[in-house]
């Protein structure tokens, strides 16, 4: 049974689900690929969302400067750092009992559509490496692992498949995988893992160039692209080795070629082209690559994407990875996210899609001005300067990695509206003190919303591998409306 008993258990299109899995299983057997285990197919919960958009605040977004305002002190030379918890004052939101930080006024106006978790916490992994925590958050497993753990998007791709057959099920927007620091570590979790590349991400690091990813190669006119395809088909048709035509491998290869051509020549590919968006709408999203990514995500979900991640991008020491100048950087990040996120929610709502689209805003951990890791952690301090009182503006901000308590915002997808869950302490250390939610249980919640039991498991190398760590994730049922 699923851990969440919201309604009479209704097994959505269970027959199709099993059929698809059976086909996948037969195909996978010869390659020693993962197989869904009997127990894994049982009791999938009724989905409350069809699509998921993960808005990834890469680098460690400080909860006290965003969703969980605490005691605020403005910048003033000589102020003891220990007295400061937040560097932004609190503002009102559309919900009486929820305040968030100044700079997020637009999001504040749609908090009545949100569920805010203030008690998310992360594992203590010793000395902090962002990409390692990101690996944990994106796969549910702490690296290194003995098998390649799939990204949560790959799980959705594998178990649910695409919503629209021509639309890749897992799309990853905004993260460059070459030429930036720690890229090998980021690549390690930005994969289909043991599900293989078929369930891996379609990477679109630059939203404004996304259209190229589904366009015929540069410089190839549509007419030529079609005739090239015709030539391919014709040569295939004239191939003398008829006896090999029914070979499974050949068939599956051709099916994939066919899918690719269908996407590249379909009208759905217009979804990838954000320049087709009306000007005023485009302008609202056009704060940054992240803002454009939110627009792209909306267009893709409208066209049937299953899982889309949009990141502010992880680059060591940039964006939310504030080792100095935290407050100033945070002001910029607020500007980058505030309008696009809000617009994304409103657009989804206007199109009647918010109820069936789960939007999650999360980060690998929070930040604090003083504490590194969490109480009792062996994490070593990685700040570049050590001061007790504010001397200059660069000292003002959340410059340490904090894993003891942070926030997650969720919109739509069957979650409650205008709901606050959990809390952190009012004084340092700002640990989650009320209804703590681990990564494992948060994933269970997300997966349950998508209609995937947290206990779903695949056999890989003869061992069960679960969608939440060891199948132990429990959905937070209070969050569901």
């Amino acid at each position, binding site marked *: 049974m699923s851990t969440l008993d919201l309604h009479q258990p209704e097994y959505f299109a269970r027959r199709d689900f099993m059929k698809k899995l059976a086909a996948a299983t*037969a195909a996978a057997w010869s390659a020693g690929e993962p197989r869904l285990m009997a127990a894994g197919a049982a009791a999938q919960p009724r989905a409350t969302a069809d699509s998921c958009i993960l808005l990834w605040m890469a680098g460690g977004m400080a909860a006290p400067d965003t969703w969980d305002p605490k005691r605020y002190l403005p910048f003033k030379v000589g102020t003891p750092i220990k007295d400061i918890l937040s560097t932004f004052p609190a503002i009102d939101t559309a919900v009486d009992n929820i305040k968030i930080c100044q700079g997020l006024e637009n999001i504040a106006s749609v908090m009545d559509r949100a569920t805010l978790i203030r008690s998310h916490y992360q594992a203590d992994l010793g*000395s902090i490496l962002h990409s*390692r925590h990101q690996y944990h958050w994106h796969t549910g497993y702490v690296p290194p692992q003995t098998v390649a753990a799939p990204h949560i998007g790959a799980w959705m791709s594998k178990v649910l498949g695409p919503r629209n057959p021509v639309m890749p099920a897992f799309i990853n927007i905004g993260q460059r995988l070459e030429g930036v620091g720690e890229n090998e570590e980021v690549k390690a979790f930005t994969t289909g893992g043991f599900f293989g590349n078929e369930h891996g991400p379609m990477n679109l690091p630059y939203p404004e160039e996304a259209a190229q990813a589904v366009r015929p190669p540069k410089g190839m006119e549509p007419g030529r692209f079609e005739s090239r395809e015709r030539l391919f088909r014709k040569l295939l048709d004239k191939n003398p080795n008829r006896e090999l035509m029914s070979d499974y491998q050949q068939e599956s290869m051709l099916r994939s070629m066919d899918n690719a051509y269908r996407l590249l020549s379909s009208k759905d590919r217009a979804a990838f082209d954000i320049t087709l968006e009306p000007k005023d709408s485009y302008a609202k999203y056009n704060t940054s690559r992240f803002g454009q990514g939110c627009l792209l995500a909306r267009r893709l979900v409208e066209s049937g994407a299953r899982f889309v991640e949009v990141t502010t991008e992880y680059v060591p020491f940039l964006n939310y990875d504030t080792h100095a100048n935290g407050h100033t950087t945070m002001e910029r990040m607020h500007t980058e996210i505030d309008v696009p996120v809000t617009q994304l929610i409103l657009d989804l709502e206007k199109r009647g899609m918010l109820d069936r689209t789960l939007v999650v805003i999360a980060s690998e951990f929070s930040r604090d001005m003083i504490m590194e890791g969490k109480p009792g952690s062996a994490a070593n301090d990685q700040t570049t300067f050590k001061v007790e009182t504010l001397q200059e503006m660069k000292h003002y901000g959340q410059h340490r990695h904090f894993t003891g308590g942070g926030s997650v915002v969720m919109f739509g997808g069957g979650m409650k509206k205008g709901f606050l869950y959990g809390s952190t302490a009012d004084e340092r250390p700002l640990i989650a003190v009320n209804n703590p939610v681990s990564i494992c249980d948060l994933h269970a919640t997300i997966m349950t919303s998508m209609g995937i039991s947290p206990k779903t498991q695949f056999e890989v190398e003869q061992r069960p591998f679960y969608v939440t760590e060891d199948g132990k994730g429990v959905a937070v049922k209070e969050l569901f409306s």
Partner: protein
Amino acid sequence: MLKKTPRRKNGRTFAVSQDIIVMRSGLLLLFIASTSAFAALDFSHQVVPILRTHCAECHTGSKKKGGFSMNDRAAFIAGGENGAAVVAGDATKGLLLEAITTSDEDKQMPPKGKRLPAAEVAILKAWINEGASWDAGFTFKKASYEPPLKPRVVELPPVVEGRANPVDRIVDAHLLKNNLERPSTLTDEAFMRRLTLDLVGLLPEPVALAAFVADKAPDKRAKLIKATLGKDVAYADHWLTFWNDLLRNDYTGTGFITGGRKQITTWLYKSLVDNKPYNQMARELIAPTPESAGFSEGIKWRGTVSAGQTTEIQFAQSVSQTFLGINMKCASCHDSFIDRWKLDEAYGLAAVVAEKPLEVFRCDKPEGRTQKASWLFPELGQIDASKPVASRQQQLAALMTHPQNGRFTRTIVNRLWHRLMGRGIVHPVDTMQTEPWSADLLDFLAVDFAENGYDLKHTMELVCASQIYQSKVQVVSKDTDSPTFVFRGPRSKRLTAEQFVDAVWQITSAAPARVDAVVVRSKLDPKAPSDEKPAAQWIWSASAAEGKVPAAGETIALRRKFSVKGEIRRAGAVITCDNEYTLYVNGRQMSSGTNWESVGSASLETVLKSNGSNELLVVAKNAGNGPNAAGLFVDVRIVTTDGKEQQISSDAAWEWSPTLPPATGKYKTTPNNWKPATIVAALPVWSGKINAPAASMLAQLIAGDIPMARDSLMKSDFLTRTLGRPNRDQIVSMRPNDLGTLEAIDLANGPILAGILDAGAKKLASQTWASPEAFVEWLYRFAFSRSPTPEELAAAREALGATLSEEGVQDMLWAVCMQPEFQLVR
């Protein structure tokens, strides 16, 4: 449920203590066995049938109703959720007799069907009172397959119809027994394509293909196999992919960023070029030198890791998987549920490389005890755990490669069979704990491999020479591929990402000029006769000046700046040092060595700058226990496109500094204390051992042309990752066989492939072709190893038009490279 839990716990505790008694006391085991043999009651003939009839359905094998399994005596006595089933020696206690005799319908067993006859109840009662003896080793559980350890010499079936290859003798007998037809034989063209792709990862060149087809010699296939395996560099280029996957070696990846990982590329590539015996390779990986240590040292991430992923545990997992096809990943955390491996066995293997006593963790919780070094098959000998790590590694290496370790040889020949035939004899190839479809075939290949000096190429040659390898692939429809596999013939294999890219590079001549891997792409024979004389002298620091002797442990940096005039065509270096060295060229590590008697070599074409300034930097170390002679010997030769040669040798123009660079070979701030190097008078033993091989190897390093770049030597990129090249964070022994949609999108419009095809089209379109048809003929013969049919030719001609255009050629290249016939080896 809740109420019963404590009682079940009691039951479990009891079961464990019983196990311990039986295991610890061989005497007790003997006693039980003899009791059974001499007692009035015969366990297997009287007791077992009763239990089997009335109880087995719900309480044996994987069935455990009420938590009660009677698979073995300990489980039987322990009982289930409600408590102990029997108390040996006292039939009045325990639940079993009560359950089979009670009239209470809620408690009675079996719950449905007939009650046990009184006679049978009496037998059970008597048996319990006598001590409930159990035949040693008896289990109700269906015997799970346990693979044999030792090698087995197979008696070959008779030769049928002159098919004398031992592989065919075994396979023919298998086909006959299963009433299956032999698959038909491949044409010469198809054979050559399959063989060349399988052994050296390349398409046969059209000219070579024509020559092979025209050859009338009856043994031409055998000769082709030998000749193909004899292409040492191409062989190494191709099989590097297989070994990089299996040893999780790569040029970038997780761990490198914080120095938590080392490459073994240079060592591995040389091992392949030299066709090093596999047992020697394994020994050098398990008990490594610095050049091969990356495998056993594993990957270390920053921060703390779970107990199941320490570098010691990684060692246990990697060694088990790579060399034995054994999955030790379950047992790294708890006793395995899927096979026989236990937590202590995983930790025993891990303890081989543990510098400190290794604390055992079960599911990440400390057990409060340590495990000493041991290995999996004590039948072959055990590791002396009191010895230091290096010695334990050597002991493990010796046990692993022990002539009686048949599992070591079976695992590798199965991997080779899988690569050549498309499916393992044991499949998947890392489940060597499961049954092969032909034990005879597996055992034969394993013994034959060992008898022939663990020569990988020998086994490949044997398999490729068989009729079954040379026959058409089995057409596999979706449904026929099930766990109940019956071998019918070879299966088609998808080109690896590397094979695909190499093949496209071959056709387009668009391979890049430089490779990323630091390897020497020549087979260097130090003993080859040569007229060359070395120009290099032996040099060291001021400590080697007249009348002085360098101290043991002295470590210095030596450098030489120089400029190259002209475009470099070939460049190579030979180097050695008494005692240790690392050579950096323009800030890139190119060679290292710890044994002065062995001359190191490096190819420098791609790292040196043409028409520019360059720097050689060597970190050199003197070893020993007291002051002793030290010297560095380097000889670099550069051939430019104008045919001129330049030589840079260790001599008085070099400088030394006591300030060492970091491991990257790049100074953060360059020291300013460089002084001229001291020329050291060469010891006769130095000159005697080094001069001739160094001169000979240097000449070979710069002879001939640089072979085409190969994708196995490149860092992975979007195209190859999409086509299935793994992030080598984990060992990968089988890549996905299917092409997915994302891959197909990348093939259809990805900039990397489009760029290669574009460059190729420019070259090909500008060549002189007799006609468009001639181009198509050439392309088909290259890509598919066959001529186009008239229908294909007509279709291609129609698309190309009367004259070749760049666009037309590019689209034709794409349409051909996308054909399944191109993307599959079949």
